[in-house]
């Protein structure tokens, strides 16, 4: 009985995954019994609602312009075992090497970070950033229609403050 159920579930899941999954959905599916991972989702519907709210100032206006290229967001995080989860994420990337291309990657003394993108006809339709810092792990996953301007604007408008570095 239990086995039949497992097989049934597997079939259902594979059917569901046959339709494209974004990175986080895949990650969460592979780690579905893991209670340390925390997942946050913003669906396309909610994204629309967010964009409908009023911008309070210039910064918010700018931010909204960037958000307009987004369709959804998912974030996975864990407060511990950062290294372990990071390696798991890299494994998924390795298995899907045709799907994602590396965009940015760096290893600091205290932080590992990768940004991978999935492109369709030159436009980024999915952006995945996963990082591991002080044993914390996090995946940020956006889907949408992000072109080069998106990346430029994103980099430009949010230049981090230098003061509290390290």
């Amino acid at each position, binding site marked *: 009985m239990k086995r039949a159920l497992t097989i049934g579930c597997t079939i259902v899941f594979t059917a569901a995954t046959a339709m494209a999954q974004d990175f986080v959905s895949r990650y969460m599916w592979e780690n579905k019994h893991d209670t340390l991972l925390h997942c946050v989702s913003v669906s396309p519907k909610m994204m629309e609602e967010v*964009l409908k709210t009023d911008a309070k100032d210039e910064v918010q206006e700018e931010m909204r312009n960037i958000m*307009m290229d987004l*369709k959804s967001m998912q974030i996975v995080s864990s407060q511990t075992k950062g290294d372990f989860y990071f390696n798991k994420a890299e494994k998924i990337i390795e298995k899907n090497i045709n799907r994602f291309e590396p965009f940015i990657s760096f290893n600091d003394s205290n932080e590992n970070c990768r940004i991978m993108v999935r492109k369709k006809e030159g436009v980024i339709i999915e952006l995945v950033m996963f990082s591991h810092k002080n044993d914390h792990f996090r995946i940020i996953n956006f889907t949408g229609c992000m072109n080069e301007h998106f990346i430029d604007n994103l980099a430009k408008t949010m230049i981090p403050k230098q003061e509290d570095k390290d």
Partner: protein
Amino acid sequence: MQEISFRNDILPLKDKLFRLALRITQNSAEAEDIVQDTMIKVWDKRNEWQQLESLEAYCLTVCRNLAIDRSQLKATQNEELTEETQEKPDASSPYEDLVHEERMQLVHRLFNQLPEKQRSIMQLRDIEGKSYKEIADILNLTEEQVKVNLFRARQRIKQQYTKIENYGL
């Protein structure tokens, strides 16, 4: 498949193209040039007409891109205009026509001060009566993005308009 002809299928789009180009460049001589260039460009691609899903959408896309290229060339001025309208007092005139005329001018200004994307979307939706899908195709956006941009455009016009109207009266 239906034979596409320049005179019957493309030339009649001229006014629609002109209005979009005008909305973007805000200069009618320039807009006319853009429509000409658009049509020449589309004419040069006549071998590909049959493959296009929508000839009209294609023409509008070409037209918008040309218009944006041109306005970028001479850019800058438009960005800074936002404050100006708000200062202009709306002296209420006793003559209805004049008020009407003035208000129309005001709407025109507010409309043209929107960012290009919002302006073009509002033009295509509210003036040309295009569906979200068509606009998305023309501007290479998703339907959600079109909707969100339109929402922001309408809200902005509404807010600015009420604001000025309240001061004026």
